[in-house]
C-alpha cells in the first residue's frame, strides 16, 4: 500500500477535510437524542410548548447542517478518490510501458491489464469509502459510548459489554463465511467451465451422443453449488438476527437497571430514552464497519498487486547511438550468443553466431521451439543474452539507447495485431507524421494496397479491435506494411507471412528487395521456399545452430535442412498436379 500513498499527495486537503466533515455530521447526529431528551425532560415535564418548538427547531437545524456536511464530505471523497485513481492509473500505465519483456512475461499481459483496470478501481473505491465511512462508524460507536458515559457512568457499562460482543459475533461469522464464500465461488467457476466447454464442444458432444452425460455432470456440479451456497447462507443468516438480539438484550438491561437508577433519582426518563437510542446507533455503525472491513481487505489486496508492478525496475537502457553503416557493410552480428529465459531451466539458444550486411537477407528456419523467435527478439534488445554479444551498427546492443535502436528496426510479430482505429492511424505507429504517400508506398510493398484501396473509406476505413474485421492474411499484410513505414534499417519478420499464399509471399519478397534495397531483412519461416533466396540461412535445432549458409550449401551439408526441404518439396511437387 505504501508506495501508492504518494498518488494521494495532491489530494491531502480532501483526504483530511472529508473525514472532518463526516465527523461533524456524526457529532450533530449524536446531539439529536440529547435534544430530544431535553424536550421530554423539560418541555413535556414543564408543559412548555415554546421550549418544545425551539428545541425542535434546533433538531431540524442540526439535520440541515448534517446534510450540508455530509454532502461536502461525499463531494470531497469523490474528487479525492477519482483524482487519486487517475494519477495512479497514469503512473501505472507509464510504468508498464517502461517494463522489459522479461518483466512483462513475469506478470503476463492479461494480469497487467487486470491490474491496470480492476485493481486500480478497487483501490480507488477503497479510498472513497475510507473518507466516507472509516471515520464515521468508529466515531459513532465511540461517540455513542462517550455520550452514554456522560449521562450515566454505571449504566454505560452495558455498552462496554454489548459493543465488543456484537463486534465479536460479526468477526466470528465473517471468519467462518469468507472461506465458505470462496468455496461457493469455486463451485460456480466449475459450472462456468462446464458450460463453456459444452458449448465449445457441442459438435463433438453430439457426434458422440453424450448430451445426457453432459447434463448429468452439469447437474451434479450445480447440486454441489447449491449445497455450498445454502450452507454459507445458513451461517451468514445468523449475523443479523443475532446482533440485533444482543442489542435488544442490551436495551432490556438498560431499561431494568435504568429503572433502578431513576428510582434513586440519578437518571431521568428522557435520559433513559436517549440511552436506548444510542444502543441502536452503535449496532448500525458496527454493521457498516463490518462491510467496510471487507471493502478494505479487497482494496489492500489490490494495492499489493499494483505495488508488485511498481516494484519492478524499468528496462535498463544504454545511451550509445548505433553507428551509421554503408551498404554492403555489416549491420548486425551475433558473436557466440547463448540465452536462457528467466526461470526457463534449459538453454534456449546455444552459441549462435552469424552476420548480416546492410541490405542483406537472413533467413532463420527450424521446428517449433527451436529458438527462431528468440534470436529475433535479441536483435532489438528485448532480452539480453547471458553470454556472447549482439552487435548492431558496430556497437553492443547492451550499450545502446533502446528506444533509438527500436526506431531503426521494423518489427513484425508472429501474431499480427492491429489496433482499433483507422488504417492510417495503424500505419502511423512507427512514424507519427508519415504522409499518405509513405503509407500507400508501404502498403503497396506489403501487397496490402490492393485490398485497402477497395475498402469503402480507403485509408480512413475502421479496423476493429484486434483487426477482427479483416482476414488473417490481410492482417498480416497490414502489420508488415506498418513496420515498413519510415524505411527501417532492419526489418524482422517473425513467421509473419504464414497466412499468405505462395504467390503473395513471393511478390512480397520481390517488392521488399526492389523497394527497400537498403533495408536488411531477417525472415523467420517454417517454409524453405520463403527463405531459399536468402544471403544466409540459419538453421536451428532445439536452440543450437544446425547449420549456417546459403540454400545450396545447406542442402549439401546440413541434414536437418535437407529433411525440412524434402518433406516440403514432396507436398509442393504434388501440388502442381493437384
Amino acid at each position, binding site marked *: 500500500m505504501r508506495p501508492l500513498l504518494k498518488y494521494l499527495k495532491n489530494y491531502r486537503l480532501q483526504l483530511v477535510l472529508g473525514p472532518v466533515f463526516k465527523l461533524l455530521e456524526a457529532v450533530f447526529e449524536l446531539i439529536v437524542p440529547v435534544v430530544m431528551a431535553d424536550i421530554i425532560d423539560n418541555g413535556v415535564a414543564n408543559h412548555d410548548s415554546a421550549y418544545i418548538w425551539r428545541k425542535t427547531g434546533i433538531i431540524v437545524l442540526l439535520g440541515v447542517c448534517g446534510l450540508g456536511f*455530509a454532502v461536502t464530505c461525499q463531494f470531497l471523497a469523490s474528487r479525492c478518490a*477519482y483524482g487519486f485513481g487517475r494519477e495512479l492509473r497514469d503512473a501505472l500505465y507509464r510504468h508498464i510501458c517502461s517494463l522489459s519483456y522479461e518483466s512483462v512475461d513475469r506478470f503476463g499481459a492479461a494480469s497487467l491489464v487486470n491490474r*491496470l483496470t480492476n485493481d486500480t478501481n478497487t483501490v480507488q473505491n477503497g479510498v472513497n469509502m475510507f473518507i466516507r465511512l472509516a471515520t464515521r462508524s468508529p466515531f459513532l460507536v465511540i461517540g455513542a459510548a462517550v455520550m452514554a458515559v456522560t449521562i450515566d457512568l454505571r449504566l454505560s457499562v452495558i455498552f462496554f459489554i454489548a459493543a465488543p460482543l456484537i463486534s465479536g459475533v460479526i468477526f466470528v461469522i465473517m471468519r467462518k463465511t469468507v472461506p465458505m464464500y470462496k468455496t461457493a465461488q469455486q463451485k460456480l467457476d466449475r459450472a462456468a467451465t462446464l458450460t463453456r*466447454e459444452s458449448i465449445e*464442444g*457441442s459438435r*463433438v458432444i453430439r457426434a458422440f451422443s453424450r448430451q445426457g452425460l453432459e447434463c448429468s455432470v452439469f447437474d451434479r456440479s450445480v447440486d454441489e*453449488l447449491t449445497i455450498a451456497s445454502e450452507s454459507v447462507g445458513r451461517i451468514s443468516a445468523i449475523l443479523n438476527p443475532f446482533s440485533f438480539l444482543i442489542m435488544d438484550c442490551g436495551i432490556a438491561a438498560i431499561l431494568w437497571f435504568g429503572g433502578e437508577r431513576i428510582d434513586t*433519582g440519578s437518571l431521568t426518563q428522557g435520559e433513559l430514552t436517549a440511552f436506548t437510542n444510542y444502543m441502536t446507533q452503535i449496532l448500525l455503525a458496527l454493521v457498516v464497519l463490518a462491510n467496510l472491513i471487507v471493502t478494505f481487505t479487497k482494496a489492500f489486496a489490490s494495492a499489493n498487486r499494483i505495488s508488485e508492478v511498481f516494484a519492478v525496475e524499468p528496462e535498463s537502457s544504454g545511451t550509445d547511438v548505433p553507428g551509421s553503416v554503408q551498404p554492403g557493410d555489416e549491420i548486425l552480428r551475433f558473436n557466440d550468443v547463448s540465452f536462457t529465459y528467466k526461470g526457463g531451466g534449459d538453454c534456449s539458444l546455444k552459441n549462435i553466431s552469424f552476420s548480416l550486411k546492410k541490405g542483406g537477407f537472413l533467413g532463420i528456419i527450424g521446428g517449433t521451439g527451436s529458438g527462431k523467435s528468440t534470436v529475433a527478439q535479441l536483435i532489438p534488445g528485448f532480452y539480453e543474452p547471458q553470454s556472447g554479444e549482439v552487435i548492431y551498427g558496430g556497437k553492443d546492443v547492451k550499450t545502446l539507447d533502446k528506444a533509438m535502436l527500436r526506431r531503426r528496426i521494423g518489427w513484425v510479430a508472429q501474431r499480427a495485431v492491429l489496433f482499433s482505429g483507422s488504417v492510417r492511424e495503424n500505419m502511423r505507429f512507427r512514424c507519427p507524421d508519415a504522409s499518405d504517400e509513405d503509407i500507400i508506398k508501404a502498403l503497396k510493398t506489403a501487397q496490402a494496397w490492393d485490398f485497402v484501396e477497395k475498402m469503402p473509406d480507403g485509408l480512413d476505413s475502421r479496423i476493429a479491435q484486434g483487426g477482427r474485421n479483416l482476414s488473417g492474411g490481410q492482417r498480416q499484410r497490414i502489420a508488415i506494411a506498418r513496420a515498413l513505414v519510415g524505411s527501417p534499417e532492419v526489418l524482422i519478420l517473425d513467421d509473419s507471412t504464414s497466412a499468405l499464399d505462395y504467390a503473395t509471399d513471393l511478390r512480397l519478397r520481390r517488392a521488399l528487395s526492389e523497394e527497400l534495397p537498403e533495408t536488411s531483412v531477417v525472415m523467420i519461416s517454417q517454409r524453405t521456399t520463403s527463405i531459399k533466396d536468402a544471403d544466409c540461412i540459419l538453421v536451428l535445432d532445439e536452440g543450437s545452430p544446425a547449420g549456417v549458409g546459403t540454400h545450396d550449401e545447406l542442402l549439401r551439408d546440413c541434414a536437418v535442412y535437407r529433411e525440412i526441404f524434402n518433406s516440403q518439396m514432396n507436398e509442393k511437387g504434388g501440388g502442381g498436379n493437384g
Partner: protein
Amino acid sequence: MADFIRTMKRVFSYARPYIIWFWLTIIFAAGSVSLSLAVPIFIGDAVDCCVGQGSVDFGELRKIIFRLLIAVVLSALFQWLMSLCTNRLAFRTVRDLRSDVFGKLQRVPLSYIDRSTKGGLSSRVINDIEIISDGLLQGFTQFFSGVITILGTLIFMLTINVKIALVVVLLTPLSFIAASQITKMTHRFYLRQSELRGRMVSFSEEYAGNQKLVTAMDFCDRAVGQFAQVNSDFSSVGANATFFSSLANPVTRFVNGLIYAAVGLLGALGAAGHSAFIGAMSVGRLSSFLAYSNQYTKPFNEISGVFAELQNAAASAERVFAVLDEEEIPDDSDKLSVNSSDCSGSVSFDDISFSYSPETRLIEHLSLDVLPGQRVAIVGPTGCGKSTMINLLLRFYDPQSGKILLSGRDSTEITRDSLRSCFGMVLQETWIFTGTVAQNISYGKPDATREEIIAAAKAVHAHGFIKRLPNGYDSVISEDSGLSQGQKQLLCIARVMLMDPPMLILDEATSSIDLRTEQRIQRAFEKLMTGKTSFVIAHRLSTIKNSDVILVMRDGNIVEKGSHA
C-alpha cells in the same frame, strides 16, 4: 411493466416445487417483523414505568422486560428461519432453472449455437442466472419484510396516535421524491461512466495487452498520452457519478430526521398537554413513536433497492427465457436405431441442396456415391463450405432438399444418436474438456478399460507424451493447460480410435504445428482410416493423392469431382 410481471411470473413458476418455502418465508417474515415492531411499544411501556425518583413500578417493569425479551428472541429466531427458507427457495429455484437451460443447450439445433456468440450463451447459464438468484434472495428477504414493516409500522402508529401517524404518512413522499430524483440524476452519469470505463478497459486490453508490440514499435510515449486522455475523461465523469449516487444516504437520512423532528414536536406538544389537536400522550408512547419514525423510511429505501434488483433480474431472466424458448431438435426416438455393425459404410448424397440462409445459396443438387471403404478428400479454399459436408453427414444441419443415404437407408429415418455412433469425427479445432487424460480419451466409450485406453493412445503415438505428464493418464488437463495443439489433436484422434466406428470424418489441421508432430498425426490418421469409409477435409497433398474420390469445392459448389489419377 406487463413484460416485467410476465417474466417474473415465469421465474416463479420454477419456484413452484418449493412453494412451501415461499409460504414459510412469508409466515416467518410476518412473525419476525410484527414481533420486532412490538419492541418499541414494550420499550415505551417500560419507560412509562419509570416516571421519576421513587415512583418506579418494578413489578410492572419486570413483566414488560420479560415480554420484551421473549419478543426479541422469537423475532431473531423467526428472522433466521426466514433467511433459511428464502435461501432454500432461491437457490433451488435457480438450480432447476440452470439445469434446464443447460439441458436446453444440448437439445437446440447446432445452427442456434453457431449463430450465437459462445461467451454470450455461457454468460446466460452462469451470470444471468446468478443475477436472478441475487434478485430472488433480495426480493424475498427485503421485499416481504419491507412491506410488512411498513404496514405494521403504520398500524402501530395508528393505534398510538392517528393524527401523528397521518403526518408521518403525509411526509413519506418527500423521501420518495428525493430518492427518485437522485436516481434519475445518477443514472445519466452512470451510463456515461460505464461507457467511458468500457473505453478505458478496451484501451488497456489493446495496448497493455500487447505491451510487447507497443514497446517494439517504440509507441510508448504516444500510448501513455492517449491513455492519459481516456483515463482523465473516465475519472472526471466517474467522480461525478460517484458523488451523485452517494447523495442518496445523507438525503434520506435528512428526510428521516425531518420526520423524526415532526413526530417529536407533535408528540411532545401532545404529551405536554398543549395541543388539543394531538390529544394526550405519555412519554413512553412518545419514545415508541420516535423509534418507529426512526426506522420508518428504511424499508422504503430497501424496497426501491429491491425494485432495481428485480428489474435487473427480470432483464436477465428474459435473456435466459429467450434460450429456453428456442425451438428444439424434434424428438426422433420413434425412428430406427441402427447399430454400427449394421453399417456397411456406403454413403450416397442424392440431389442435395443446402444453404445456411435463403439469401446465399450454397450447395445445390449435389449427388455423390461413396462405396464402403472409400476415401473421399474434400479440398478448396477457406470458407468454401467444406465443413458444411460434415454438418450434413452428421445431421448437425439438414439439407433443404434431397436425401443422404447410409447403407441404402434414408438418414432421416434413423435416430440422430445412432447415426452419429456410426461416425468418428476429428475436427481441426480440438476439444479437450477439464478432466484426466484417460477421461478425455474414453469420452466416447466411458466403460473402456485402462488397457484399451492405453492401446488407443499408443496407436496414435500419444502414449509417449502422456507418460511424461506428471500423473500420466490421470493428469488433469484442459483446453489451456499447456498441451500443444498437436498433442491435443492426438488425444482427439485417440478418442475416435478407441470407438473404432465404421466411418470417419476428419478435418486436417492447418495451423503450424511442428514437423514431427505433424508427421505423427498423419500417421495416426492413416492408421485410423484403414478399411473405413472416410471423409477428409484435406490440406495436404499426400492425403489427396491417396484418396479414391476428390471433391474440389468453391463457394459451396463442387466444381470438380474425380480421383487423383
